[in-house]
């Protein structure tokens, strides 16, 4: 099914006789829920863009590329830097804005500016009963009623099908530079990244790519970038390059075409090196100063079993040997299940995912 409008979509959900698989462009969806595919790509188009108010509203099926091109024409961007995981996951197709939001997809700049959910101002969505619901709006400060916007961001289509999203956008930086630290082991790299982020030099990317280096990005006006890079180098050593490998870090290019499962580990940064040592991984990439670790594991190796109890969570992004999402403690799982039961009482959306 590929509805063209919100009301057609609502109609389709109401009429569903069995489970539905909610799909934007299918470029970053996780797990393998069974059912009839419900595509949002038919609901496309930017409905409002006010560069002077830093606001963009678009239908959920709008291609991400179209959004990024429209913003670029005004010197603006999606500051949370959504990753392109097509290479990593072996997918074709075109990412949609709704898919980015449903996955709360956020790249290296998350450490400085926040995640996709932090830029999401409003949503319209269709719940499991086929009811259209709106929440939030298109203004930057809004505490009117409960924040269902955050609930929907990263819900992977399990609470409702997004039909329209409003986002805060930001001006693109006039300049950027990357300080590269060579030859650090994982622990030293995480320590250096912590020192960089604990400095006032507004680091907008902090990643450690074993074998390639430890990368610290600064952005801003040209004068700011020069100053900040020089200060970071004075503090940590290393060298400054104009352009770091940020797209490759964002998209986890290191694991592209490599056999094995891919896991995403979200932890307290200083815990990361110890956990990586326990994981027995084939490869790893630290982003978010160590708060996000991508791990390449032997097929069907269960990372969670390998790590034992730890503070944080692991998501199986590519592979089949374990549940996709980290099992939650019973009382938290009960809240999640309760929300799902009320937003999708018939259990039609992405059955089995996030459950």
């Amino acid at each position: 099914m590929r509805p063209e409008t919100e009301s057609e979509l609502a109609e389709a959900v109401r009429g569903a006789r069995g489970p539905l698989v909610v799909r934007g462009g299918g470029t970053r969806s996780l797990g393998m829920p069974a059912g009839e595919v419900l595509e949002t790509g038919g609901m496309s188009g930017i409905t409002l863009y006010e560069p002077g108010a830093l606001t963009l509203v678009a239908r959920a099926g709008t291609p991400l590329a179209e959004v990024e091109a429209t913003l670029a024409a005004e010197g603006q961007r999606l500051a949370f830097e959504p990753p392109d995981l097509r290479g990593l996951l072996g997918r074709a197709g075109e990412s949609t804005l709704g898919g980015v939001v449903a996955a709360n997809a956020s790249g290296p700049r998350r450490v400085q500016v926040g995640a996709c959910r932090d830029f999401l101002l409003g949503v319209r969505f269709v719940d499991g009963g086929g009811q259209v619901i709106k929440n939030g709006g298109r203004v930057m400060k809004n505490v009117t009623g409960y924040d269902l916007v955050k609930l929907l961001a990263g819900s992977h289509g399990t609470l409702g099908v997004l039909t329209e999203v409003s986002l805060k956008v930001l001006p693109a930086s006039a300049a950027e530079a990357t300080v590269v630290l060579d030859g650090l082991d994982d622990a030293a790299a995480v320590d250096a990244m912590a020192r960089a982020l604990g400095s006032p030099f507004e680091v907008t990317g902090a990643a450690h790519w074993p074998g390639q280096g430890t990368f610290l990005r600064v952005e801003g006006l040209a004068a700011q970038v020069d100053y900040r890079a020089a200060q970071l180098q004075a503090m940590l050593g290393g060298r400054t390059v104009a352009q770091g490998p940020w797209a490759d870090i964002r998209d986890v290019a290191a694991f592209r075409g490599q056999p094995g499962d891919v896991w995403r580990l979200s932890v307290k940064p200083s815990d990361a090196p110890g956990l990586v040592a326990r994981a027995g991984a084939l490869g790893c990439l630290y982003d978010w100063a160590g708060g996000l670790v991508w791990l390449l594991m032997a097929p069907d190796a269960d990372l969670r079993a390998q790590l034992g109890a730890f503070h944080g969570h692991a998501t199986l992004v590519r592979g089949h040997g374990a549940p996709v999402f980290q099992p939650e403690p019973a009382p938290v799982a009960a809240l999640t299940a309760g929300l799902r039961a009320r937003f999708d009482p018939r259990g039609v959306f992405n059955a089995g995912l996030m459950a």
Partner: protein
Amino acid sequence: MDMPAPNASVLARKAGIVARLRAVLPADAVIDADESLRAYECDALSAYRCAPLAAVLPRTTAEVSAVLKVCHEEGVPVVPRGSGTSLAGGAMPSADAVILGVARMNAVLEVDYPNRFIRVQSGRTNLSVTGAVETDGFFYAPDPSSQLACAIAGNIAMNSGGAHCLKYGVTTNNLLGVTLVQMDGTVVDVGGPFMDAGGIDLLGVICGSEGQLGVVTEAWLRILPKPEGARPVLMGFDANEVAGACVSDIIKAGVLPVAIEFMDRPCIEACEAFAKAGYPMCEALLIVEVEGSPAEIDAQLALIKDIARRHNPVELREAQSEDEAKRIWLGRKSAFGAMGQINDYMCLDGTIPVSALPHVLRRIGEMSRECGLDVANVFHAGDGNMHPLILYDANKPGDLERCEAFGAEILKLCVEVGGCLTGEHGVGIEKRDLMTVQFAPEDLEAQMRVKDVFDPKWLLNPAKVFPLAASAGRRAG
């Protein structure tokens, strides 16, 4: 402003309920004497008052859990309270409710600089969170005007903002995790010292739920390194529209100030008389602040002043010293106090798209003349969060009602132009009955479902946020 009739059965059982609370708490943590309860009869929305059934002041998460378990079993409503600084009546009790105050829970539990977080008990005041880390060069970013007094618990409940959220975001963007006690006493950790949710983002909906989903007893907060320096520039314009256009051009230009504050003439005059900040007398004043090293500040302000000059400012003045910068901010920060010296006022909090600023200010002016009550405007212009202050005389019969009706019209205008009823103060009881202006019944139904999950008996702060008619069936249960 209506409140539901108190539950007569709860009132009749007061002695037994208080005895059960005393059984689970230290002796000094339960208050039930009428004269002592008066301290809890209102928050900063002091026009509305009602003494609670009792008040409890637990010191630990375990004590909070024990209190809630008792109240859950007894069917007693609970109104959580931080420092009682809510401008929306978020902590106003009902006669059948137990006030659960977290003020005694103010400890710092953990400070972690390498991972840039602090874990505190939720009764700790906003400013003292920064106080715990500032000697080491860090701060907690959200800075509501009441930050000296307001508690983190209330900040989380209302998703509080502040003057600097243009750059740093509001509470929800700086909150990593909470320990939440549910109404039945269940204790859960949601989130933690990591940067995203492992499943559905429950933390996102807990923040800003106005104490209706659970009682937050502990929180992991993101702390940030202090900038090297900051400097404000003052800009005066001869029309609100021009100031509005200038704001839009600044945020479009690629330099992101930490704050852009706006004041109109009535507000400028009052602030100047009160704080002697050296403000020029003009129609509209902007305070734009940027951060960084001295050279970085110069670079940013050069760009900003260029933009301002294109709008023919009547004044354009960069703070030349720390002292001057302080005075510029003192004027703005004392705006509410300054207005309070000359008048009673009601402070509104709607947000509008920045592009609608000139239109909305013009309409407010017209409406003010029509209803005969003056308005002073002071607000966070960069993010469109308005704070019109409607001036009235509390001693004049009918003035408060006129003022409230005018306020409601302004908020409807905010929604009409694509904005919302409240940007940072919350709904509470104050804007509860206006929710239908912004939301269709099904939108409210979707929000109430969330409360059904967290608090099936609707005992936590039940008569807030949702119009009483909309929540009636649920509260009756």
